């Protein structure tokens, strides 16, 4: 225990002596947390639409003006033919083309059905898909008004679905994205710092001097883990401050629950970094290995895509990364106010990760080769 004290003293001194590292550790998450969520806006507005109206009837004009008035679309062109309209997509001036066939009005009134052509630019998949959905819902809405306008008793959609976004009533992306970005930054900083640390001692050669002392393996690993854990908790606190100050996000749930999870998550994550450190022999290798895993963490943790809609094998991988569980818990606590009882399973997962990864790192660290 006394020996651990000396190791900690040394590690803290080394971390806090390097002013650049300090700045990187604290300025980077603050700035990124301010910038990234603003850019990661999943709300789609200003979808550019080119319209081809072959009908020129009052119904077709009503539909077009309704689309224009919805607030989601800019009608960038009205062209007489589809061939001309599609050039707008080709030149990236439009995301969608809406084609209204001739006899739109008469078919609607006479037969009660009509087909519309919607062409989307699938290069910017998200925008076009969401824009396409918006367009469909506007058309759908229009559809339901027709019988009223026509003054006839036509059967329209019998089941009317209305959404409400529970826990995030305005469906604001920031409530969803900010906590996840915070987790991501914590993961990046914690993961890289710990992954590069032991390996740097290997590179400089000081590890040899450590290995020839009677330091116990667990003392050495704990001595590396604790300082980064403290740094991680500071970064986390800083991030919560930014979330509140900049985005007005104040967690619905308890801070205690959140900090308990953050504490355990960090132990797991740092254990992972140290494990990489014990397997690699220089900083470049450690960097690549850490990068490989952190990419997977980022893309599979449910930050960008819902884990529930992944194929089973991907879901399995997602569940095998600690990040997935932590993002889930943080979102639940921040948005929903979940307590310990609701997130017990995640707690067990994270504890297993923490014990497993650190145990593995201690096991794999060899003082004698």
């Amino acid at each position, binding site marked *: 225990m006394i020996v651990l004290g000396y190791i900690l003293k040394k590690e803290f001194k*080394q971390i806090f002596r390097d002013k650049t590292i300090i700045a990187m550790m604290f300025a980077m998450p603050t700035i990124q947390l301010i910038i990234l969520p603003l850019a990661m806006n999943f709300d789609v507005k200003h979808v550019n639409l080119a319209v081809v109206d072959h009908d020129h009837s009052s119904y077709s004009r009503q539909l077009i003006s309704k689309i224009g008035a919805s607030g989601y679309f800019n009608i960038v062109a009205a062209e007489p033919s589809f061939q001309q309209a599609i050039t707008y997509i080709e030149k990236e001036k439009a995301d969608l083309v809406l084609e209204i066939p001739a006899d739109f009005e008469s078919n609607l009134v006479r037969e009660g059905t009509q087909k519309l052509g919607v062409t989307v630019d699938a290069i910017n998949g998200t925008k076009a898909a969401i824009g396409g959905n918006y367009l469909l819902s506007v058309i759908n809405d229009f559809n339901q008004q027709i019988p009223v306008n026509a003054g006839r008793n036509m059967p329209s959609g019998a089941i009317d679905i209305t959404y409400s976004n529970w826990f995030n009533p305005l469906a604001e992306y920031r409530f969803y994205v900010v906590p996840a970005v915070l987790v991501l930054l914590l993961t990046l900083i914690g993961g890289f710092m710990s992954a590069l640390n032991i390996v740097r001692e290997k590179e400089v050669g000081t590890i040899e001097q450590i290995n*020839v002392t*009677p330091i116990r393996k667990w003392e050495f690993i704990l001595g590396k883990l604790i300082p980064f854990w403290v740094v991680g908790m500071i970064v986390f606190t800083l991030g919560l401050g930014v979330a509140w100050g900049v985005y007005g996000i104040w967690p619905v749930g308890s801070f205690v629950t959140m900090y308990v999870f953050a504490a355990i998550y960090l132990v797991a994550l740092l254990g992972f970094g140290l494990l990489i450190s014990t397997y690699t022999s220089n900083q470049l290798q450690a960097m690549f290995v850490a990068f490989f895993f952190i990419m997977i963490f980022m893309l599979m943790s449910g930050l960008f895509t819902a884990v529930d809609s992944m194929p089973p094998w991907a879901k399995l991988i997602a569940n095998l990364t600690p990040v997935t569980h932590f993002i889930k818990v943080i979102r639940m606590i921040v948005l929903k106010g979940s307590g310990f009882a609701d997130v017990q399973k995640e707690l067990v997962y994270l504890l297993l990760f923490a014990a497993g990864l650190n145990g593995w790192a201690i096991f794999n660290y060899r003082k004698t*080769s």
Partner: protein
Amino acid sequence: MEEKVIVCKDLTKRFGDFYAVNKISFEVNKGEIFGFLGANGAGKTTAMRILCGLSYPTSGEATVAGFNVYKQTEAIKKNIGYMSQKFSLYENLTVLENIEFFGGVYGVPSAEIRKRSDNLVQKLGLTAEAKKLVGSLPLGWKQKLAFSVAIFHQPRIVFLDEPTGGVDPVTRRQFWDMIYEAAATGITIFVTTHYMDEAEYCNRVTIMVDGKVEALDSPANLKAQFKANNMDEVFYQLARGAKRSGD
């Protein structure tokens, strides 16, 4: 009978088909300055790493300070000091911080650390630099500091791997004064070197060629045996037949 602090018998380290150390046997007495010579790649560092508990031998037997190199590496580590070929104190810690850290890790009580480090800094003439980062010191001072840190916890044996590489002749001389002083307190010195004048300072010298011990005796006896005027000639006669070279 003299106390043996290191005993090696047929010690071997093999990497694939390559015998880095091939059945070496020798004994080192307590308080002795034991020189370990050999060309680059002869296997000196590998042998030394085994004796320090940093590497397991492939076969053969060895004990250091009475502890087995297979099973009791951590017990060996408590009883030795080690100064590697590559400078390995922390460059981003100060002189005093380095001393405190390594002293603490070896279990020297904190009051004792303070007392001894004051003396040490004074003796090395580093009083003005005590609070400077080690990275900013010139090489000669770094090496003297590294040696002092290696014996700070008063180990029974200290292993020095080419401690004077790249150091000027005056500092080298001072370094050997420090070695003699440590030996006088009963610390056994196990030292590798490429400088043949330094070999003359040793009580006994081993010359390794291609992983094997080719000669082991006092410098005077070796010179007589090989009919040479100095250790340089002895070394040359033995090492020119070497098939391995380079690190």
